[in-house]
């Protein structure tokens, strides 16, 4: 039963996210300043940029883990003041609790919400099935490959029926083949459970394969924006790829 409610929970549509004049930093060091960005409800927005440009910092701020030093972040109609199960964060690696099995990791958001054991177990099993890991339910993270761990993480993030999923280079540590499989899986899973996705990557092909829109981030905020004409399809568009590479290249030179 709960799988139904969980699924409808996400089907209600994604959460719009906004940054207005946002500055971010840690330890007195400003990473990004004057950032304006609007993420439309239900879209996949890819944030690209050189390392150190503040992609991950922005994602942490959107998740509510890092307060802004200036400006305003809003999720839906409400300002972001802290973490919320509405905005799930998927980390690059090793974010699964190693003392919990895959199944119990996926159960976690439901357990936090107080869903009774039997229901949350069924829902978690369903989610593991959707990411192709029905057989790995009883295994611990250390017994899973990097790709499998990321699939469990995806299932865990989505099991809580978040309205926005923030993904911080989630496939960055995987080999090319696994990575392509994961991208397809992500799009597949999102079709059944739509949510707003903010996806950070520095891989141009990944950005174009997943994004409805790609923005390039620099120290002064968004420096370029590309709308993908045939989003969420494996269509290759060399001209678009060149345009994004140029935008990233300009960013890279500026950063140096």
């Amino acid at each position, binding site marked *: 039963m709960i799988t139904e409610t969980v699924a409808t929970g996400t089907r209600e549509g994604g959460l719009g996210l906004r940054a207005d004049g946002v500055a971010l930093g840690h330890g007195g060091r400003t990473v990004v300043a004057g950032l304006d960005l609007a993420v439309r409800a239900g879209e996949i927005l890819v944030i690209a940029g050189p390392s150190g440009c503040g992609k991950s910092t922005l994602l942490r701020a959107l*998740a509510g883990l890092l307060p802004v030093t200036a400006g305003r972040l809003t999720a839906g109609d409400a300002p972001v003041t802290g973490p919320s199960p509405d905005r799930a*964060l998927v980390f690059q690696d090793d974010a699964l609790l190693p*003392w919990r099995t895959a199944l119990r990791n996926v159960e976690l958001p439901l357990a*936090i919400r107080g869903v009774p054991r039997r229901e949350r177990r069924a829902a978690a099993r369903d989610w593991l099935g959707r990411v192709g890991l029905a057989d790995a339910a009883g295994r611990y993270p250390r017994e899973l490959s990097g790709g499998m761990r990321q699939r469990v993480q995806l299932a865990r*993030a989505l099991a809580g029926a978040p309205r926005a999923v923030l993904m911080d280079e989630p496939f960055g540590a995987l080999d090319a083949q696994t990575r392509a499989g994961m991208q397809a899986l992500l799009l597949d899973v999102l079709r059944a459970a739509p949510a707003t996705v903010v996806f950070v990557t520095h891989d141009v092909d990944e950005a174009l394969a997943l994004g409805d829109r790609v923005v390039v981030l620099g120290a002064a905020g968004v420096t370029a924006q590309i709308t993908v004409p045939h989003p969420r399809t494996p269509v290759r568009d060399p001209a678009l790829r060149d345009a994004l590479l140029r935008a990233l290249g300009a960013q890279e030179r500026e950063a140096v």
Partner: protein
Amino acid sequence: MTVVEERTVTVPVRRERPVVRRAVRGLALLGALGVWQVLTAADARVWVRFDRLPGPVEVAREFGRQLGHGPYYADVAQSLVRILTGFGLAAVAGIGLGIALARSRWAQDLLQPLLEVARPIPAIALVPVAILLFPANEQGIVFITFTAAFFPVLVSTRHAVAALPGVWEDAVRTLGGGRWRVLTGVVLPGALPGVFGGLSVGMGVAWICVVSAEMISGDFGVGYRTWQAYTIVDYPGVLVGMITIGVLGRATSGLVELAGRRLLAGRLG
């Protein structure tokens, strides 16, 4: 490369059978007992003097006699109550304060200086303070035991908590978990392997201190009985006490390790 491979092939050939190894170990132990018996029976004086030390046969006979009498068990029970009380309190306080120190700046500023001042003092040196502070001997001994076990647990808990990767806590918070969930769902289970290291060490030190404290100021207990036997020139009784202390120490650390293995099952190999 080939040389290395050849070596790895030859290793299994030289492996001893476990039965043989166990027999060798048993014989080594029996051999030591035999040497002890011979030396004491011959009243050997080879700079170290064996003429007053009781031999293993004498000790075994005394052990048998004591095992048939009530006071032996009363002493064992008394020592166990002391160690379990002191150790239990130390475990609770050490884990609690260790977490607080690792996670709260207030706790750090308030407690750190105090604890740093008290830590270098060996627990057994607190005996005079314990006698002054506590109305009953019993409480003093438990206090000494507590202090002994407290610091290893505290220090290892603090380090284990401080070393936790932040990503686990971030993950739980972004899934909707609050402070309590982070504490019980991430900090405690995450720090558990390190905490058990401290508990093991703490149990060992606690035994040293309970026995010493009993020798100094006890009215009952294995340590008291051992010292008592010495003062009345009952040397076999002293050795029975020593062996009892060893067995109890081994049993209690074994319990701590067993609990650790149970709780950490699945996480380790």
